């Protein structure tokens, strides 16, 4: 009797939860109450990490410091070049009359838990509704896209990784702009490209970047690198496997991206206006600066939302 009542209740809950929105607030409240659980469950790992951190010898710290400095130097150099390229890109886009690139705002969050079910690839992060996280928000790590937010609780959020079976993302080949859809396989090591024509120009080593066509992920972030292309397998389409560039099972710090949610038209108008005002400013100030190409960036990057690279400011 008890079994029957509770089982019916369970089934009813499942249906309601799957089909309607009514249980979402309840879930999020329960999530709030249960958030300390994740913290508690993660405590041993955290303690262990802190202990190993304490025990790292100073020599290895010095070595790491050296390495990071060298890396920073390399990055600086690339940033200088980037400033110039951005400038050029903006000008070319202006010529083409298309929307300008907008720099996305990001916040950093930390991983606090993994999904106990080994067949789903989901993780938990320590930022939630209170930090402005929203459903469908893209998540990155230092080397590429990781996934998107699928559930928001007040102080935590759940992220579906690229490699989950239920996840797919529109991508394009960085080399030639060929579009495709990268589908998760349930294997943390690779994604598969679906419906790539037998004659498509794609080869091992190609970088796949997000194309932004699904209106969910911002465009231009690296997603995966092609590792295997099988032609003439008798299947109607190519079999293409690609390994994600993000370190899906190693990254502890993740970036949450706030790309702007305006429609393309609005974005284009805003960008055009920004361009115009920037041009006016530039015309007012810097016609005389001509003599000799001073190293990287041209003297005045147009002010506006598009150029917020710190490198550009440092040049002057």
């Amino acid at each position: 009797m008890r079994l029957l009542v509770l089982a019916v209740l369970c089934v009813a809950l499942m249906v309601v939860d799957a089909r309607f929105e009514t249980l979402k607030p309840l879930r999020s409240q329960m999530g709030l109450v249960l958030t300390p659980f994740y913290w508690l469950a993660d405590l041993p790992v955290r303690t262990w990490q802190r202990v190993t951190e304490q025990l790292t010898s100073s020599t290895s710290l010095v070595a790491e410091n050296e390495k990071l400095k060298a890396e920073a130097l390399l990055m600086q150099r690339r940033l200088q070049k980037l400033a110039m390229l951005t400038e050029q890109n903006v000008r070319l886009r202006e010529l083409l009359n298309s929307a300008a690139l907008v720099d996305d705002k990001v916040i950093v969050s930390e991983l606090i838990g993994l999904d106990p079910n080994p067949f789903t690839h989901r993780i938990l992060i320590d930022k939630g509704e209170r930090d402005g996280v929203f459903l469908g928000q893209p998540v990155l790590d230092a080397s590429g896209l990781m996934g998107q937010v699928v559930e928001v609780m007040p102080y935590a959020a759940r992220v579906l990784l690229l490699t989950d079976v239920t996840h797919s993302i529109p991508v394009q080949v960085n080399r030639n702009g060929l579009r495709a859809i990268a589908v998760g396989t349930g294997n943390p090591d690779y994604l598969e490209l679906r419906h790539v024509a037998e004659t498509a120009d794609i080869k091992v080593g190609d970088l796949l970047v997000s194309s932004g066509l699904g209106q969910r992920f911002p465009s231009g972030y690296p997603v995966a690198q092609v590792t295997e292309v099988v032609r003439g397998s008798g299947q109607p389409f190519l079999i293409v496997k690609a390994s994600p560039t993000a370190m899906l099972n190693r990254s502890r710090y993740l970036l949450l991206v706030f790309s702007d949610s305006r429609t393309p038209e609005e974005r284009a108008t805003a960008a055009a206006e920004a361009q115009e005002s920037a041009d006016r400013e530039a015309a007012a100030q810097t016609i005389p600066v001509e003599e000799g190409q001073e190293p990287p960036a041209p003297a005045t990057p147009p002010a506006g939302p598009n150029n917020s690279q710190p490198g550009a400011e440092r040049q002057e």
Partner: protein
Amino acid sequence: MITGRLNNGWVIWLSLVLALLLSIAPMPQSFALARPLWLGMFIAYWAIALPHRGGMGAAFFFGLMLDVLSGTLLGQNGLPLILVTFLVLSLQQRLRMFPLLQQSLVLLVILGLGELVHLWLNTLAGNRPPTLLFLVPVPVSALLWPWVFVALQWARRRFDVY
């Protein structure tokens, strides 16, 4: 926590909370497949030891907690858990007479049934595990059962729960 009621019910709750914690605790990738069904085992113990205190309600409640914690549909873990509890409760008279090994054999079957129901629900919800590996936790739990039983029995006697 203070022993508010005379029969130390908090020990049961504490052990179940511990089971909940264990079932979401991070594990190395290679062992994640073999994560024992802590909640199922703990609830089964209390159902065998103290059947008069019910257990169905607790199974339902903790199942929902696990659903929230693991982000599945509400009831997806609850339904298998109440099924397991029901089966254990209905076999309780016999189970408590069995030696430990025989108990774990019966539990192997019961937890396996629970996992199969879980598989159906997972499939309905749209993520079907690709292989039969989802059954690995069942034998692992059955192997762990004697230890769990002894530990919980110690706790029950130590704190005099009845």
